[in-house]
């Protein structure tokens, strides 16, 4: 079987392949660590999966709308949202108001990205690359690089509670986000617009779709999801770390392309992304148990990214 044929089948039966990949990761991890096959593992993997998945959804949507769309700033938006929540919390306000303001901060940052991309017409790549440094740098500079503490214990309810072994964050964030976004893509007019814009921008424009509006909304959604991730991480760690979003853009992009989203737009689904999320979360938890250094982990995910994108592109020729 040539590489071309394999890539073709990989794209055609993507979900089956993803399940096989998850199976392989589970088998290898259970051989490496004796602590892997335990009931706790499910909860831990889903806990990892929540943040990875939310950021992955944002990147998936941005990729879907085409036009060279990419969001490299998801991690930095998450860091700055986390720091925003931390600072507001220092003012001894109601923690839920602080959490909401973190999400608002994410929405604002996403909207700024979208504005620069769609109305000033700076290419998405270079826009989100600049905001990656601007937002991330701001998060570190405002806090002098030190984590902010002072979260009340009841704030940890989102990140630290389990319901029958399933983490609450997975139930109240990832599952609703999955259902709403997948419903939006496949059952609403806006969802069809996204695919139309991503598939052929000129035709979409001639049909009367406002390409700019669609893309701007998607960048804003990506920011909102980053804000939600910040709430989850703050609640989980009970601190606001300014570097909480570092390296997350790599994982988010990997998850999106592993789930079958085309980097050129028009192809992809949210349920593909969620399967890929489970795969990457299992991989990450397995590597964590096997004591793999985080630099190695990112290197391995980098290789995974380059292999997956190559398979996607070759298989769709």
């Amino acid at each position: 079987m040539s590489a071309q044929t394999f890539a073709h089948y990989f794209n055609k039966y993507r979900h089956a392949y993803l399940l096989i990949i998850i199976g392989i990761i589970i088998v290898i991890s259970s051989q490496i660590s004796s602590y892997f096959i335990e009931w706790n593992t499910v909860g831990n993997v889903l806990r990892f999966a929540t943040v990875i998945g939310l950021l992955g959804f944002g990147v998936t949507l941005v990729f879907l709308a085409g036009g060279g769309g990419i969001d490299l700033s998801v991690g930095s938006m998450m860091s700055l949202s986390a720091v925003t929540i931390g600072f507001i919390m220092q003012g001894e306000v109601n923690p839920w108001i602080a959490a909401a303001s973190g999400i608002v901060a994410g929405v604002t940052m996403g909207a700024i990205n979208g504005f620069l991309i769609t109305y000033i017409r700076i290419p998405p790549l270079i826009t989100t690359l600049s905001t990656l440094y601007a937002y991330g740098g701001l998060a570190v500079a405002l806090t002098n690089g030190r984590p902010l503490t002072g979260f009340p214990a009841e704030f940890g309810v989102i990140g630290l509670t389990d319901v029958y072994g399933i983490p609450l964050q997975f139930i109240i964030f990832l599952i609703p986000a999955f259902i709403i976004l997948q419903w939006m893509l496949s059952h609403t007019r806006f969802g069809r617009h996204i695919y139309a814009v991503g598939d052929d921008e000129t035709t979409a424009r001639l049909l009367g779709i406002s390409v700019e509006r669609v893309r701007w909304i998607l960048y804003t959604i990506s920011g909102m999801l980053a804000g939600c991730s910040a709430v989850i991480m703050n609640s989980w760690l009970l601190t606001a770390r300014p570097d909480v979003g570092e390296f997350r853009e790599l994982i988010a992009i990997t998850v999106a392309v592993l789930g079958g989203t085309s980097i050129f737009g028009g192809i992809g689904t949210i349920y593909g992304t969620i399967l890929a999320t489970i795969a990457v979360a299992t991989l990450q938890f397995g590597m964590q148990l096997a004591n793999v250094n985080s630099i190695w982990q990112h290197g391995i995910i980098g290789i995974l990214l380059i292999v997956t994108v190559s398979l996607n592109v070759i298989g769709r020729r």
Partner: protein
Amino acid sequence: MIGGRSATLQQLTRWLKLNPIKTQSLMAQLAEKRSVIIALLLTIQYIVFSVSASHFLDQGNLTSILYSSINLAVIALGMAFVLTMGSIDVSVGSVQGVAAIAVGRAVQFGWSPITAVLAGPAVGALFGATIGSFVSRIKLPAIIVTLAMLYIGRAIIFFAVGGEWISGLPDTLSFLKETYLFNVIPLPLILLVAIYLGGWYIMRMHPFGRHIHAVGSGGSTARLAGISVHRVQILTHTLTGLLVGLAATWYVALYQNVEINIGITIFLDAIVATVLGGTSVLGGKSNIIGTLLSVFFIATLRNGLVLISVPSLWVDVILGVLLISVLVTEFYQYKLRVRSQYT
């Protein structure tokens, strides 16, 4: 038409390639030249810093600015090449790290200076060729390939040095920074000028530079003109890798050690320098002299801000915002120009 102007002014006009027949005044045309703006910014910056920081004009400080500029300048030249081709390389920092380890090991094993000097560019070119192959043969976007390469490179660095520094290297390469020509002009400065002259020659005089511009302008024009786009993509990425490797050699010669997070901030500096210098992020337009001037601007900014005790954490924010502002200005002007053509 230009009779009223003095001979010197006419000479200057010709030299700066301004158009005396245009209705715009010469001053307005001058203000549109990117290199002139940056030279002006650089002058203002030097005046401000020399007034506000007492040790700014010390010879030691100026030398250290020059040395860090050389590191940045070589990488920024590589960045200018890839950006002009309509591509990007975010992995320069990691590639520099891997190349620096190769140089460091070569020095440690006591290999001859020539081998040690060449080890950096060789490793860099290898990385560049790999990236170029993915971009041209499989047709992946350069951002995805280099983003993955950024993290793979970090893993290789970690593997190669095992979490420790390579330090206390013998001074095999010190001749690079300690030689003075005619006892006044430092050798690194001459090397820098030579490299930039080479870069300028390739971009402006050599057919290959025209090919880079043609590929960067997008569309199928380059292919229809008979240019092998694959070849240009691979060669340009290799050339960038080579320059990054050269910067790695300079880094080892300068500091005589290799630390684990070498080059972690260099990408931001390099892209700000190229974009501020007038190279288009859309490709097809380059400005080598502007890049060199912006490199000095950024190296001085990093140095001066620390001297007037701005926490170094803020420098990344300032550079990020500077990058966005330059882009917003450029693209907004472009938008207005396009609109005025059709109305």
